[in-house]
C-alpha cells in the first residue's frame, strides 16, 4: 500500500522534533530532528535500541515528558491539524485518553495497586464523558470483556492478576475512550511469547474495529513484522531509515538496519555465526558531528564524519540517512 500524500493533511504529523534532557549540567540529545506522519488505521513502528529516543518521541506526542529534566526544544506535532505543543495544559488534558492514549511498557507499574481495576478504567471514562459512576463502571466492564477478561474480575486489585492480564487491563484503559491515536510503548516486551501472541492478536483486532492509528514502539523486529504498515528505524535520536514494512524487511538499506537484521538469530535459517554490530551506540551528550552511526559502521569513510547526513529517497517511499546509499545498494 502506498502512503497517500495528496493535498489532505495527515492525521498525525511530527516535524523536526528535538528533545533534550539536562542532567548534571550536561545536555543529553535524546531526539534530534525526527519527522514522520501517520494516517488513521495505519501502524507505524518505531524500532531501535535502548536509549535511541523512541519513548521520548511518544511522550512528546502525549506531552508527558518530565520537565525538567526533559525539554522539547523544537519541532511541531500536528494531531488532526492542531499543534499539540502550542495548546494549553487544560486542552491537552482533554485530548489525553480521548484522542490519544498510551500503553506503557511495564504493566506491573502502570496500574494503581490500591485501586480496583474496574474503577481505574472507569476513571478514564468519567474524565472524558458526562456519565454517572455506574454507567462508567458498566463501560469499564465491557472494555474488560473486549480484552478477554471476565467482568466479574472488575472488583479485583492488580496484584490478583497475572502479568498478561495486567497488560490487557492497561490496554483496556488505553482504549476505553476509543482514542484515534494509540501509542504503544513496548506493550508486549514484559510478556511471555504465548501471551504476547494473544495480546498482539487483540491489538490488531481492536485497531481494525476502531480504525485507530497506532505507533508501535519496540525493539523486536518480529513484532514489527507482525503489526506494522510503516517502519521508522531510530538511531541516536534520528530516523535513519523509513519506509513501508515490505521495503525495510526485504531491502534494508542503512548499514545499521542491515546490522540489526544480521544480529538476529533467525528461526527459519541455520546460521553458524551471527554478524553483530561492533561497538556501542554513541554517547548522547557528545554525538558525532556527521553520521551518528559512522563510528560503528563497516563502510564508514572520512566523508561520513564531515557534516550531518540528510535523508535520501532511495526508492519510492523508502528513505535512508546514509551518504553511501548508492554504493550500498549494489552490494
Amino acid at each position, binding site marked *: 500500500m502506498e502512503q497517500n500524500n495528496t493535498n489532505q493533511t495527515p492525521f498525525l504529523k511530527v516535524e523536526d522534533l528535538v528533545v533534550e534532557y539536562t542532567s548534571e549540567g550536561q545536555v543529553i540529545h535524546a531526539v534530534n530532528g525526527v519527522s514522520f506522519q501517520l494516517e488513521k488505521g495505519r501502524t507505524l513502528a518505531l524500532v531501535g*535500541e535502548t536509549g535511541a529516543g523512541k519513548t521520548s518521541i511518544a511522550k512528546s506526542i502525549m506531552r508527558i515528558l518530565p520537565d525538567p529534566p526533559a525539554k522539547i526544544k523544537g519541532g511541531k506535532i500536528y494531531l488532526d491539524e492542531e499543534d499539540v505543543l502550542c495548546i494549553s495544559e487544560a486542552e491537552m488534558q482533554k485530548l489525553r485518553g480521548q484522542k490519544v492514549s498510551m500503553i506503557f511498557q511495564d504493566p506491573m507499574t502502570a496500574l494503581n495497586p490500591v485501586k480496583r481495576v474496574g474503577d481505574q478504567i472507569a476513571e478514564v471514562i468519567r474524565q472524558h464523558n458526562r456519565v454517572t459512576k455506574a454507567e462508567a463502571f458498566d463501560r469499564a466492564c465491557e472494555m474488560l470483556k473486549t480484552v478477554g477478561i471476565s467482568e466479574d474480575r472488575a472488583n479485583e486489585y492488580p496484584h490478583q492478576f*497475572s502479568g498478561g492480564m495486567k497488560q490487557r487491563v492497561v490496554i483496556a484503559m488505553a482504549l476505553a475512550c476509543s482514542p484515534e491515536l494509540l501509542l504503544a510503548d513496548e506493550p508486549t516486551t514484559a510478556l511471555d511469547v*504465548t501471551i504476547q501472541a494473544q495480546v498482539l492478536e487483540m491489538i490488531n483486532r481492536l485497531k481494525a474495529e476502531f480504525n485507530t492509528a497506532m505507533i508501535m514502539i519496540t525493539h523486536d523486529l518480529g513484532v514489527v513484522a*507482525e503489526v506494522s504498515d510503516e517502519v521508522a528505524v531510530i538511531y541516536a535520536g534520528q530516523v535513519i531509515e523509513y519506509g513501508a*514494512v515490505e521495503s525495510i524487511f526485504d531491502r534494508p538499506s542503512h548499514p545499521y538496519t542491515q546490522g540489526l537484521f544480521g544480529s538476529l*538469530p533467525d*528461526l*527459519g535459517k541455520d*546460521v553458524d555465526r551471527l554478524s553483530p554490530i561492533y561497538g556501542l551506540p554513541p554517547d548522547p551528550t557528545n554525538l558525532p558531528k556527521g553520521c551518528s552511526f559512522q563510528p560503528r559502521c563497516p563502510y564508514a569513510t572520512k566523508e561520513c564524519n564531515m557534516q550531518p547526513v540528510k535523508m535520501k529517497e532511495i526508492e519510492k517511499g523508502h528513505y535512508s540517512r546514509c551518504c553511501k546509499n548508492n554504493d550500498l545498494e549494489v552490494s
Partner: protein
Amino acid sequence: MAALIEARNLKKYFDSPKGMVHAVDDVSFKIEEGRTMGVVGESGCGKSTLGRTMIHLLESTGGNILFEGKDVTNAGGRDLKNLREKMQIIFQDPFSSLNPRMTIKGTIQEPLILSKRFKTKGELEDETDRIMNLVGIEERLRDSYPHELDGGRRQRVGIGRALALMPKFVVCDEPVSALDVSIQAQILNLLMDLQDQYGLTYMFVTHDLSVVRHISDDICVMYLGQLVETSPSKELFKNQLHPYSKALLSAIPSTDIHHKKERIILKGEITSPINPKPGCRFATRCPYVCDRCNSPQKLEEVLPDHYVSCCRVREINNL
C-alpha cells in the same frame, strides 16, 4: 559420549504461605560433554530454578544430580567447594549480579584468590589479564566499577568471573535477554567461541526461542515445573509433538513478512504451580484436552531421541 551432568527425577519445591510451589517437579535429563542443552519455557515455569538446583545454588527437594558419573546430590563441605570450581553460572541481569563496590579486576580475581591456585601476585595478575582478554574487556577498564560499564561489557565481566577457574559445566541463565540485539549477538558469539576453545558444556536457560535454536544442540521444553518435550534442537524446531511446544513455537513473531505462519492462540490462563493437581498442567490451556489428561503424564520416547509427555501425542500427530 558419557553424560557430564545428569538429573534424575529432580524436584525443587518452595514453601509459600499458600502451599508448596512445585517449581521443578520430577525432571530428568542428561547433558553430554561439550554440548549445549537449551531449556525453554515461559516465566515461572521453573527453568531458572532448575539451573540453580543443578549447580547446588539451591538445595533439591528430591531426586538426584550426577556429575561426571558421581552422585553429587548431597555434596557438602570440601566436595561442594571442589564442585563449585567445575560448575558455574552466568546470570541474567548484568546490572544486579555484579558487586557495585568491587572493581572489574576485583570481581574477576575473587574466584582466583579463593581457589588458592596462584602462588604469587604476579601469577594472579597475569591470569586476570588473560581472562579479561579472553572475554574481550579492554585493559583500561581494569579499575573501573560496574556502573561505569554498559550492559554488554558488564555481561562480559560476568562471563569472565564464571569462567575464571575453567569450569566444565556452565549454566547460562538468560545471559542475553537484558541486552540489545546488536550487543546480544556479540555475547552469543563469545559464548560459542569459548565453548569451541575449552570444550565447555552449557545449560542455556532462556525464553527466547530464536536464541536457543541458534546455540543449542538439544532442547528441553518446560511447562510449570515439568519437562513436556525434549529432543535434539533441529528435530524440535522441525517437528514439535507436544501441544504446548506447538503453541510456543507458533507464537514467536517471525521477521518473515511474506510467509505468515499459522498461529495457535492459546486460551485460558496459566494454572498455579502451588499444590498442582496430579494431571497434565497444560490441560487448562490445551486445545486437545480430554479426560485422560487428569491422570499423571509420563515422558515417553515417541520418536528416536524425541521424548514427549502427553497422553494423546500419537493421536494428535498421527504417529
